[in-house]
Every structure is written in C-alpha cells, then in structure tokens.
C-alpha cells in the first residue's frame, strides 16, 4: 500500500531522511517510531507529496502520486499531531465541509454517524474554537474516517486524550483494522503501539534501523531470556537437570513468592520459541508440579531505547538497507 525506495531528503547540509526503504502491506498496522527529529514527519510529508524528496520514490497503492493525484488522495486518511481547524465553524460544519471536499455520498448522514462514533454528537453545533484539545483530536479522527479511506496515516492519534479517550481511539482504530484498513501510526506512546501494531519500523537520525514484528525484534535484540517458574513441590535435583539443558545458561532459586507457591526458579536461557516447552517437559519428567511460568520479555520501550541509543541497524543482515 505504501512503498518508499531510496527516499532521501536533505535540507542544506542536514540529511533528514537517508535512503529510506519502507513498505507497509495491505491490512497491517505499522508502528512508525523514532525519537524527535528522527525524520518521521519528513517521511510522512514526502509520502503525502507535500514535500519533494531529494532522491528516491514513493508509491501509494502501487502508483506514483502524480499518476492519479486526486484518486490517491481520496483513498488516504491523514491526521497530524496537532489539530488545526477552522475555529469559526461548528463541529458539524467542519465535517460537512470535508465530507463535500471528499465527495462523500449522503454527507449529512455520514457526518452524524461519525459524530456519534467519536461521541461528539451533543457538541456538534458548538464552534470548533471552543472545543478542548481532546475534542479536537476526536473531531480530527472523525474527519480522517469520514470518507472511508483505505489507508490511515496517523501522527500521534492519541495526543491530548485522557485514558478514556485513548481507549476509545484505540478501539476505533482496531475496528477500522478489522474492517481491512491499513494503518501507519507514528506515536510516542510505545505501549499503545505495542498493543495495536502488527509491525514496527524504528527510525533514528533519518535512517530506518529496524522493521519487523515485535517478537522478531525482541528475538534479535535479546542475548538471553529470563523465565520465572513457580513450583508447588520442587523435587531434589531439579536444578541440576535444568542446568544440563543445552539452552539453559543458569538456574537460580528466587525469593519465596507471595502467591502461595512453595518455590520459584529464575532460569536464564538462550532465546527461542521452544524454550518454555523444553523446560516444562524437564520439570514434568522430574516430577515437579508447575503452577506458573512466565517469560520476562523486552517491551517495546526497551527495544526502542536499545536500538536508538546504540544506533543498531537490524536491517543490514537481512540486506534491506
């Protein structure tokens, strides 16, 4: 749906985006991450044709924007970080204006649907200038969804929202995804990205350093995983049996858990999807009764910080960049 090849933007001596190869597939939620000044917004501007690249190309729906400018623009729904609106219009008038611009059929009915969806129907006749930041954010989302676009490009969609608003917006975006929309989301709320995105791309200093599923990024960044096992009755010698497993690096008893388990073990092992099964089988064979097992994984924040702080590229080995 979105593809960039060798996309580069220089502002004088500064290279804001450097040889970016990005690919967002149909139906996925792509989390576009990076610290401030990483080049995310510049990339989005180039994707939308609002900024001319120094080099490289952008394809939307397999076409250059110049091939079908108006057609492509109508298939996109774009929301920026800040909601700039016509303050002299009411919420309903604002959506109606954009509905007409996008030539939405039965525009009045559609506007009402969208106002109800973002829970602004009771405030629709108030001037947008009097809306709170959160209300503007929701109205912006309603504008984006009004014309039923195939691809949503959202920059900080939950900015200015309270926790209820964040949940509402997340639910709406997940509903849109279920209906087959493709989403490109740029956000600093990493927990939100982790919950919603099927794939993430991490940019730093104008370069795309990583692009993959969360599981794959974790796997590639993690030298060893930590598995905590709660046992009801640890049989003798179980520590030795676990230690002898080729994938296990170390086994140490943990402090007594508060949940009633008789003992807990912290097992450090080499990363791999089959580790938990291997450990569970060994414990079972030793006669241990496992009452809990959880893997301590890197969260997106840790992945993000690890990649951006150390400027690690996870693309080079795969030959992408």
């Amino acid at each position, binding site marked *: 749906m979105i593809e960039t090849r060798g996309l580069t933007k220089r502002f004088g001596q500064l290279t804001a985006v450097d040889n970016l190869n990005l690919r967002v597939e149909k139906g996925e939620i792509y989390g576009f991450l990076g610290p401030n000044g990483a080049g995310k917004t510049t990339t989005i501007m180039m994707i939308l044709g609002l900024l001319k690249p120094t080099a490289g190309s952008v394809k939307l729906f397999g076409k250059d924007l110049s091939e079908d*400018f108006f057609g492509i623009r109508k298939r996109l729904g774009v929301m920026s970080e800040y909601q*700039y609106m*016509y303050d002299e219009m009411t919420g309903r008038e604002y959506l109606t204006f954009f509905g007409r611009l996008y*030539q939405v059929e039965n525009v009045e009915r559609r506007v009402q649907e969208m106002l109800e969806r973002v829970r602004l129907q009771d405030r629709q006749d108030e001037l947008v200038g009097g809306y709170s930041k959160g209300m503007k954010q929701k109205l912006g989302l309603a504008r984006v969804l009004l014309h039923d676009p195939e691809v949503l490009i959202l920059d900080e969609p939950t900015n200015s929202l309270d926790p209820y608003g964040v949940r509402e917006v997340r639910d709406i975006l997940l509903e849109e995804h279920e209906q087959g929309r493709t989403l490109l989301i740029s956000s600093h709320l990493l927990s939100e990205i982790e919950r919603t995105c099927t794939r993430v791309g991490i940019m730093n200093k104008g370069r795309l350093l990583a692009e993959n599923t969360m599981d794959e990024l974790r796997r590639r960044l993690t030298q060893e995983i930590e598995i905590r096992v709660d046992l009801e009755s640890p049989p003798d010698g179980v520590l030795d049996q676990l230690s002898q497993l080729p994938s296990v690096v170390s086994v140490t008893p943990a402090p007594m858990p508060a949940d009633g388990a008789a003992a807990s073990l912290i097992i450090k092992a080499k990363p791999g999807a089959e580790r938990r099964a291997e450990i569970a089988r060994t414990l079972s064979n030793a006669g241990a009764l496992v009452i809990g097992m959880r893997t301590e994984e890197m969260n997106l924040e840790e992945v993000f910080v690890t990649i951006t702080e150390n400027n690690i590229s996870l693309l080079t080995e795969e030959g992408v960049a």
Partner: protein
Amino acid sequence: MSVTAQRLHAVRLIAGRELRSTVMGIGIYIVMALSFVLASYYINAFIYAVSQNGAVAASSPLIIPLFIAVFIGALYLGLLSSLTISRERDQGTLEVLFYGPVDSFSYVIGKFVEQMAVFGIFLLFDLIFFGIIALITNAGLNWQMLGLLLISFFVAASVVAFGILLSSLTRSSRASVILFVAIMIAFTAFFWLYGQLMQIPDKELSTTMIYVRQAVDYLRRGIEWISPLDYLNRGANAVAAGSLTGFIVSLVEALVYGAVLLAASIFFFNRKGVRK
C-alpha cells in the same frame, strides 16, 4: 471524474468556505461603510459647489466618488488577499486541507474566486448606493459609471492576484500585511515624487537632475506594469476619456497581468510548501 472536474469541485468548496467566513465577518461592512462615507463627502462638496455657484460643469459628477469607492474596495481586497494564504499557513489549516484532494492550482484559484466574489458584493452595493444617489441628486447613472464598474472588476482581479502572490511568498500573515502595505506606500510615494519632479520646469534643473528625471521616467514606465493600482488608474482614465479602445486595452492588460501573477503565485506556493 476528470482532473479538471476534481479541481473545479475543490475550487468551489474552498471559495465557498472562505466567502462565508468573509461575509460573516465585520471587516467587509466597515470598509464598505467607509467608502460610502468618503464618496458621500465628495458628493456633498459637489452639491455645495452647485448651490454656491448655481451651476458646475461636469459630464459625470458621480464618476469620481464611484472611483473612490471602487478604489477603496479594491485596496481592501488586495490587503485581504495578501493575508489569505499566509494566514491559513500560519494557522496550520492549510496543511490539513492538503491532506485531501486539493492541489496548489485549485487552492490558489479557490482563493482568487472567493476574493472576486467579495468584490462582486462590493460592486453590487456600489451600484445600489450610487443608483440611489443618482436618483436623489438627479445626476443620473451613465455608461461611464457602468464602464468603470465593469473595468474595476477586472482591475480588482489584478489587485487580488497581486495580494495572493505576496501571500504565497510569505510564511506569516504579519509579514504579508507589512509587505503589502510597504509596497503600496512605496508605489504611491514614487508616483507622488514623480509628479513633483515632472512639475519642475527644465530650465530650473541642472544637467544631472535632468538625467535623474529621465531615469525616474523610465522607472515609472516599468512600475506602471507592476503596480496593480496603476491598471485601475489607466482603466478609469480610459472611461473618463470615453475611449472604447483604451477601455478594451486596459481590460485585456488587467486580465493578462492577473493571469501572470496567479501563475507566479502557484509556482511560489509550490516552492514554499504548505507547512506552518
């Protein structure tokens, strides 16, 4: 839907939204009232002269007050146009608009159409106002006045295009206004100085000053083609002189000038971009 149809659709919506915003505002009515007050002042002075002298020879006594009203309207539109793009860029709404099916052509032309629609409202009120004055004073509406109204529409188009060009060149509304006012003052000051210089007899000028005056004269010829208000002057002069050829030439000149400025506006708008 063809590209042209898509563009026209965007032009219509952009112009409609802007027009609504302008009509709902108070600025247009204040300027209109001001232009009528100044025109009335002139008419009053004329009537006073008639009452004092018994008769005053004038082929069309309302032409100058009408020119004043039209001039003020066109100047206001120029100022408004100089704000139109930069203000929206300043507010960030321009970027949001350009996420959708809007290109620079449809946007600039939409702005132009809206300003011309506002001028159309000005002209309508001018017609009503001067129609009433003509009835009261028995001065009569004549073809010269209608000619001035017609040519003022085309000249206003060039003033608006000039304002839009300035707006496309600047990033903030403040800079646009300052630039517009500064250029208008510079043009006016130049023509005033030129007038003063031309009034000095040759024998009172040194050789150097004669060369300076010649250079200023060449400069004036150039500025005549740049200053939008000069198109209005030329058109008004052609109307006052009753020259049909001069009228048509002024009209065509204003049209070409406006088209060139609009094309330049689109070019510079594309270079400046839509971001705040």
